[in-house]
Every structure is written in structure tokens, then in C-alpha cells.
């Protein structure tokens, strides 16, 4: 086995990358913060629900079995907090159940998935409001309902998936509120037909929702949530194609709201390592520049999966396999002809899956009108309680990009490090500075996740600290 490649992320892209690189003869170490492989879609289920059926559960089981049977050194429950260039490749620092770990590998594959976007509205921080993705996890991994009477809102395929999940668990869905119009779904059909299986599943979901008598409101948005400690009502209004509310609102009684406005690729690792990024709203926003196999502008660094541009879980698996092959080729263990032969069918499959995923990503792209309509008093950065009004004031005072805005207002300085608000804030600055490129992206800094102080400091003896010599007096 040749050393090697470090894979960050154990979702479909990371698993695909690890398996194909290992099969080609590379030593592979995979890190993930979850207790097992599968990521968000093919998540490992706790013992009581391990026998759950369904296509996602099947894929997850198969991938975990393949991973277990492979030579991949798969390390779970690890928080990777640092990546940096090392003399012979990349250094990865993680903390796990056994404490601190350091690994150096000649190559690195970042398969770090996404963060869910939520465009703020009055009441969005009320307990009982949660993300669509988070709701999916509750439903799948815990069989927990977000509430007894749930409004499911936002945009994209998760809407139907969550609504059906709630119905399956015996919950009540008060309404499904979709930013997209019927016409947008119709326009997406030809691309979705590239994965007939997924399209059929989606159509089945919608039929189930209709059978249950759940109202489905197309081209509508949640404009406010009532309730202090607990959701009591959800206000919805029609919107135009840009997402801007364009008519009188109505009130839906509910005790919870599952809402998501799309997915944002996680690009922190490539950005920390100096890879070029570009802005493409139709693929989720800021994405890492990469070739068809995931090779970035930094030698030895690859990206795969939704973190490299939203294309869906199915495309992520193939994309991961391609990145693993590319790493193996670049390491010299996979000859060019074998690389060509093995990558061609994967490329075709990944393009098919990406047609479906791409249509979904376009639908989930940030809607400027929805962002523009955020009210003056609404909190945008929930970690630091920064309102739209404070952001506008800083822009008016001359803040030129998201990082300057962060310095001036603390917007994005809290525990989430702008993962939740950064995309919306970029959209808020963009009109004043000439677009999203100029508005920039919040600089990525280690640690990649907030880390308990003691996990970093560890135990130590003072006289072993090797303090540098004092500066001149």
C-alpha cells in the first residue's frame, strides 16, 4: 500500500472516494464526525431502527458493508479541526474519543457536504422552528416528530421527503409551503427524468401528501412565526419568482415549522488550503473550482460531493469515486489507461445523477427577493444577534465585503462562524458593492468546528511547554 490519501467526510462522496482510492492501492484514512459512515442521506441508524427499509437505508447499509470490508482506516466520531500543507502533503489534526490525532498524507479529499440555508423571517429563532435537514435526521435516526402539527416550508426535494416522513411517523402536516411554482417543477421534469427512480419516488411522495389531505401551497413563503417560547402560528404569503412576498398573508395554526431554503456547499477546507473558489448560485453559491474528477487548483487536493457544488447524494457517490481514482492516478498507482477505463462509466453515471441533482440545485438557489424582503428588525446572525438594520447601517457606513461587515458588527463571528448566516449576508451586501464576487465569503479559519478548550490544550506539565525565548526588552 502506498501512502496515501486522507478523506474528510464519510457521506456518499467520502465513502466513494475512500473505496475507489483503496481499491486502486492507496492507503486511505477517512475521518467523519458522525459515529458511522453514510452522511446525512445514508445515515447509520441506531439499533432500534436499524432494520428500517427504504432505498436510502439499503444504500447506506451496502456502503457501510463495503467500507468495513475494505482496507480503509475509517475513523468516526472525529472532529477534524485543522488542515494545512505539510512538507510531504497535508497535515490533518483531529480530536476523537481517544484524544488528539495527527495524520499527514500526500493527498487530501474534502467531501464535507453542506449547510442548510435559512433565509431569516420574524420568529425564525423561536423554539419549534428547525431546518428541513435537521428534521430529516430527527425523523430517520430518532423516529421523532418536530411537533404534533407541523408546517413544512422552503424549497427543494426535502419538502416532500420531510412531509412524508412526518406522515409516516403518524404526525400531522398542517401545510407544505413551497417557494417554487408549479411551472418550475414542470420545467425541472426533463432533467429529473435522468434519474427515473428518484423522480418516481418524488411523485409517490407528492401523491401520499395529497392523499393525506395536506394543503400544498406553491410559490408561497413563510413570512412570520408567532409564539415566544413555542410556535403557535405560521404566516404564509404568495411570492414572486424571486421569492419576494407579493400578496396578503394568511395564518396557519401549527406548533412547529420545518423550513429550509436550499443547501450551501461547505468549502472551508479547500479555502483554508488556498484553492480557488467561484460563485455559482445555481450550484449552491460559493464552490471550489475543480475539474470533472474533483481536482482543485491546489496540487493533491480534491473535492467531491455536494461540498463541491450541489448535485445530490446519488451524484456524490459517483463524484467521490472519481476523486478517489484521480488521487490514485496522481499518486502513480493507477495507470492512465486503467484510470480512463474505470472513470468513463462513473463519469457518465455521475453526469446522469447530476442532471437530476442540478435541477434540484437550481430550484434551491438563493432567491434574491426573499433575502431583500428581510425586515429591518429581523435577526440575521443568530449567534451574535445582528439584525438586518445593523447590517444595512454598516453597509451604508462603507463596509465593502462580508469580512469587513463581520469586523464592524460581529455578524458571523459566533460559534457557527457564518456557516448559517454568511450566504444571506453576502446577498445583502451584493447590491451595494456590485455582486456576490465583490461581497466575498467569510474567511475560513481553524478550528473547522468549535472545539472544547481542553480537547486542544490536553494535559501538560508547565516545564514541558518549551516556551519561545522572550522578545527583546
Amino acid at each position, binding site marked *: 500500500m502506498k501512502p496515501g490519501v486522507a478523506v474528510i467526510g464519510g457521506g456518499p462522496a467520502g465513502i466513494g472516494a475512500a473505496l475507489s482510492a483503496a481499491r486502486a492501492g492507496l492507503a486511505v484514512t477517512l475521518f467523519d464526525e458522525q459515529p458511522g459512515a453514510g452522511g446525512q442521506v445514508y445515515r447509520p441508524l441506531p439499533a432500534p431502527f436499524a432494520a428500517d427499509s427504504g432505498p436510502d437505508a439499503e444504500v447506506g447499509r451496502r456502503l457501510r458493508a463495503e467500507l468495513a470490508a475494505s482496507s480503509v482506516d475509517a475513523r468516526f466520531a472525529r472532529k477534524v479541526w*485543522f488542515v*494545512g*500543507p505539510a512538507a510531504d502533503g497535508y*497535515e490533518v*489534526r483531529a480530536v476523537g474519543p481517544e484524544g488528539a490525532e*495527527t495524520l499527514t498524507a500526500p493527498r487530501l479529499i474534502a467531501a464535507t457536504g453542506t449547510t442548510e440555508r435559512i433565509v431569516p423571517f420574524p420568529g425564525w429563532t423561536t423554539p419549534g422552528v428547525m431546518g428541513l435537514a435537521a428534521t430529516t435526521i430527527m425523523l430517520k435516526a430518532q423516529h421523532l416528530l418536530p411537533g404534533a402539527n407541523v408546517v413544512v416550508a422552503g424549497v427543494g426535494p426535502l419538502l416532500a421527503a420531510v412531509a412524508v416522513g412526518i406522515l409516516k411517523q403518524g404526525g400531522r402536516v398542517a401545510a407544505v409551503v413551497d417557494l417554487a411554482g408549479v411551472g418550475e417543477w414542470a420545467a425541472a421534469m426533463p432533467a429529473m427524468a435522468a434519474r427515473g427512480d428518484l423522480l418516481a419516488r418524488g411523485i409517490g411522495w407528492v401523491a401520499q401528501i395529497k392523499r393525506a389531505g395536506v394543503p400544498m401551497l406553491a410559490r408561497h413563503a413563510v413570512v412570520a412565526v408567532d409564539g415566544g417560547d413555542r410556535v403557535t402560528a405560521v404566516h404564509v404569503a404568495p411570492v414572486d419568482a424571486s421569492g419576494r412576498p407579493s400578496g396578503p398573508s394568511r395564518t396557519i395554526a401549527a406548533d412547529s415549522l420545518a423550513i429550509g431554503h436550499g443547501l450551501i456547499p461547505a468549502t472551508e477546507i479547500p479555502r*483554508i488550503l*488556498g484553492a480557488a473558489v467561484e460563485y455559482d448560485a445555481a450550484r449552491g453559491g460559493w464552490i471550489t473550482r475543480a475539474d470533472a474528477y474533483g481536482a482543485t487548483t491546489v496540487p493533491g487536493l480534491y473535492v467531491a460531493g455536494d461540498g463541491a457544488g450541489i448535485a445530490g447524494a446519488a451524484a456524490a457517490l459517483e463524484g467521490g469515486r472519481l476523486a478517489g481514482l484521480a488521487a490514485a492516478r496522481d499518486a502513480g498507482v493507477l495507470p492512465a489507461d486503467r484510470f480512463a477505463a474505470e472513470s468513463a462509466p462513473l463519469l457518465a453515471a455521475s453526469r446522469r445523477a447530476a442532471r437530476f441533482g442540478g435541477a434540484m440545485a437550481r430550484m434551491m438557489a438563493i432567491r434574491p427577493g426573499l433575502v431583500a424582503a428581510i425586515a429591518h428588525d429581523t435577526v440575521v446572525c443568530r449567534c451574535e444577534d445582528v439584525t438586518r438594520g445593523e447590517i444595512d447601517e*454598516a453597509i451604508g*457606513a*462603507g*463596509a*465593502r*465585503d462580508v*469580512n*469587513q461587515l*463581520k*469586523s*464592524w458588527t*460581529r455578524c458571523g*463571528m*459566533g*460559534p457557527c*462562524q457564518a456557516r448559517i448566516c454568511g450566504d444571506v449576508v453576502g446577498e445583502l451586501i451584493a447590491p451595494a458593492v456590485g455582486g456576490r464576487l465583490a461581497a466575498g465569503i467569510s*474567511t475560513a*479559519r*481553524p*478550528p473547522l468546528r*468549535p*472545539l*472544547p*478548550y*481542553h480537547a*486542544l*490544550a*490536553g494535559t*501538560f506539565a*508547565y*516545564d514541558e*511547554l*518549551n*516556551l*519561545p*525565548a*522572550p*522578545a*527583546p*526588552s
Partner: protein
Amino acid sequence: MTGFDALIVGGGVMGATTALRLAQGGMRVAVIEKRALGTGASGVNAGTLSLQIKRAALVPYAIKGIERWRSTHERLGIDVHYRRTGGLTLAFTAAEAEVLTARMTERKAAGVPLEFVTTARAREIEPGLSANPVLASFCAEDGYASSTLTGRAYREALLKAGVAIHEGAPVTAIERGGGFRVVTPRGTFVGRRLVLAGGAWLAALGRMIGVEFPISVRVNTVSVTTRMPMAIHRIVGHAFGLLTLKQSDNGTMLIGGGWQGRGDPERGAVEVIPDNVIGNLRLALHAVPALASARVVRTWLGLEANVPDAMPLVGPVPGVDDAFVIGCVRGGYTIGPFMGELLADTVLGREPEMPIFDPARFNSLQPQKLSA
């Protein structure tokens, strides 16, 4: 050549203060900044405003500098969260106590109002301290400001004073002849005088006018935690200068001390060195045990310029008429506002309140060497 009376290259504390005072002195001034005002060392340092950690020779300047920060609100019209907290510098071993005693005795003689205190007394002054120190010094004048607000504060003051601000304008060339033409992608600016205030980027700027500033660059690490219950109310340092620790009003702990990361002026701040972050965190934890329950949310780097004698570089550029330089002030965030005034007075032809730090003291900057 028409244009500005003075072009200031660099929009940090030093460039901005110089610009402000020149404008107040009647000059037409432009600040040309490669990124945005206050986003270099002035905006990413840990904000420590400590008198007792300044070198003895700089103490009179630091006293004036802290006076300026204290009056920021009146001076600039915007608050930068200045806090006078008092500060403790700690020694954890006998060897460190020796260094602390020597340095603080010297600084006290130079005018720092400080006292040596026992461990017990130090813990009365700051109950959040561990029992680890063997000796400490206390200075009631120490404090901090929020460096992230620097750029915003100066921006508003400069605009009010009529200073032209050109941000996002990295200088690519400086042409001479009856004044200076400063070339940037955002346009070419013409001025009679030139002030180089580019911090870590001074060496490259100097070369554009044929001058070799003897500058080295340090890459300093800062870390911050999530908000936590108030654990300390003073700023805390270390005898060797390897720690600055403070808790902001919002509960976050800011940890600095000049531990090195990787980077240089060409590439900027590249990356932290994990073992140095860990060393910094350990030293802080040794001083304040409550940190153990914190979460570290972010680490970052700032580039700091130094010259071989570690004294400021403030004054006329030897051999280049009407060109001036300001930088390399150890403790520059604290002293910078005062240094800017001194340089501005020099440019305006006034007698500065205290002696400036003539760049001509370096052999490499002597005019006869330049022409050789």
C-alpha cells in the same frame, strides 16, 4: 504637478492617524489602502493596550498612545470599546520571576505606574487567576480596545475631516518627479508628499522608491473562545510577553501573545501552526483555569513588521525628498495613534511633541549607500 498635498499608503492606525492630523493641519490628503481600512494588523491584533509590556524607551510614547485610545470617542466620533481594566503580568517560575523583576523595574523607572505583587495579592486583584504564578506585576493603566472596530472608527473620522479614501487599491508602482504618482488598479494618485504606512508591506513599498527598509515580518497568532461566564476582569500577560489574555464584555476570551504562524507579505497570513496554537492555549490555561470549560471558535494571524533594533521607524525617508515612513512600532496598536501625530507634525514642519525615530539610523538607508 497638482493633486494632493500628501498621499498616505496604508490605512491602518498609523496611516489613518497621520492622515487625520495632516488634514486637520490644512493639507489635502488621500489614503490609499490595498484592502480596506483597518484590516491589517490594526484590525486583527488582540487589542491589548498595556503600558507595562512596553519597552522602557517607548513608555513615554505608550502613555500618550493610551491617552489617545481613551479619548477615541471624542477624537474619532465612534466608540472602539476602550476599557481600562488594569493588567497583571505573571511569572510562573523563578527564572521568569527574574526576567519580570528586571524588566518591570526598568519600565517602572521609565514611568510605568506599576507595582510588584505576590501571588495572593494578584489573586485578590484578579480572582480568576490560578495559584500558579510565583510573582506578578500590576499596572492599573492597562486595558484594551476592540481592534475589529478600528477601521470603522477611522473611516468615519477621515471622511469627516475631508480625507479621500481609496480602498481595494494595492499600489503597483510609485513614480517620482516633482512629487509622487502612486499607481493602483483603481487609478493613479498624484501628491506632493508621500507617507508609507504599509505595515508588513513596507519593504515592498520602499523598493518602489528605491529604498531598502531593513524589515522582517512576524506572523502573530490570536485565538478566541465562544462566550462564557465572566471569569476575569483584568488583562493578563506573561513575563516573556508570550501571552495576552482578556475577556470582552460579551464573554469571549481573546488569547494572543505573538506565537508564530506561517505567512509573509507576498502570501499574507497563510496558516496557523497547530502546535503554537496549542502552546498559546496551554499558557493561557495555566494562568486562568476557567478557560478549560470554554470552546475555541477561531484562530487567526496578523502580520507585524520589525526592524533589527526593534524600535519604531518614523520619520523622513533618507535620500528621497518629501517621502516619509511610519511603522515597525512594537506595540504599534497602543502607540500608533501618537506616532501618527508625531509624523504628521514632522511633515507639517512643526516641532513634534517627542523625538521621532529617524530611519537614517540604519546603514542600509543612508543616502550614499542608496546611490552606490
